[in-house]
């Protein structure tokens, strides 16, 4: 199957073929929406910001020189818009103490988690990731789901490589900590 690269559609848009942008929207909309959702958390707001990210990308497409991937460039736009949005709204995050979880707890949580039904696992995991702070939730998604390198995450978020690695380490522990709490809730209900 002949799959055209982003650069083909970008050149088309630059040459005045606006319809070519539709292919870029179709290709990247899910990941853009996911990035925004990880940070903003409210579906309606996320939809609006994700749309704004595409419109901003369209308006600035002549500035895209192709030094990085188009996906990295547009993810950065979506990230910046989302961060500005939550700064305006002043959302507060619940601090999660990851020091409380022991290695044994991690093992038990894992064992209990994999025994759950797939739909249940999806639901619990989504809620758990949304309980993390915005940057941690986003980094987890980019690194594990989209398999984006630490270098690219650095480019998108402007966080240093060492900071990203620390956040990944902390987010893993925090997620287990949240899952452990959720597991206790499931079994006590």
């Amino acid at each position, binding site marked *: 199957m002949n799959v055209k690269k982003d650069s083909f559609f970008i050149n088309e848009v630059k040459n005045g073929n606006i319809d070519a942008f539709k292919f870029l929207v179709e290709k990247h909309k899910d*990941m853009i929406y996911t990035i925004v959702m990880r940070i903003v958390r409210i579906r309606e707001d996320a*939809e609006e910001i994700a749309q704004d990210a595409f419109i901003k990308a369209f308006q600035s497409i002549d500035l895209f020189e192709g030094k990085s991937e188009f996906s990295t460039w547009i993810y950065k736009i979506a990230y910046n818009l989302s961060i500005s949005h939550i700064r305006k709204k002043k959302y507060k995050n619940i601090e999660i103490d990851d020091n409380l979880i022991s290695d044994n707890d991690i093992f038990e949580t894992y064992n209990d988690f994999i025994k759950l039904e797939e739909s249940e696992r999806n639901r619990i995991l989504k809620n758990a990731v949304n309980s993390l702070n915005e940057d941690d939730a986003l980094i987890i998604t980019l690194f*594990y789901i989209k398999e984006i390198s630490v270098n690219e995450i650095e480019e998108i978020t402007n966080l240093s490589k060492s900071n990203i690695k620390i956040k990944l380490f902390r987010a893993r522990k925090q997620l287990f900590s949240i899952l452990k709490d959720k597991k206790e809730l499931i079994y006590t209900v």
Partner: protein
Amino acid sequence: MEDKTKIYFEEIIKDLKIETPSKKFTDNVMKQIYAEFSDESVLKLSFFNKNKFLIIFSVVFLSIFLIIIFFSSGQPVATPDNSIYDLYLKLVFDKLKDFFNVKFEFFLILRIIFSSVFILYLADFFISKIQKLNHSV
């Protein structure tokens, strides 16, 4: 133990799915883009959108060429410094006048048209640059 945590984590995180926006997402984005584009085209002179370099090069070249030809008044004076230039100019001028066989005013009008097109192009170029700066991320 950290390695094991990573392994357990990788197993668990597989169940995290990418979010999907509403079905109308793409249509909504494209609607806004079409609206945006039609707004811009009111400001922009859309016939100058493509191959800007080629257009500006041609217009500048033609304008200079026509200015040199039609504003060189009087008979060429042969001096050691400019004799080749003047002779060449006279030759081109005479050839063109013979070729078109029309009055001098025609060339003046032609020059005004080219100059106007060039000025319009410059205006369009700067407007689009300002718009890009305003929209820059």
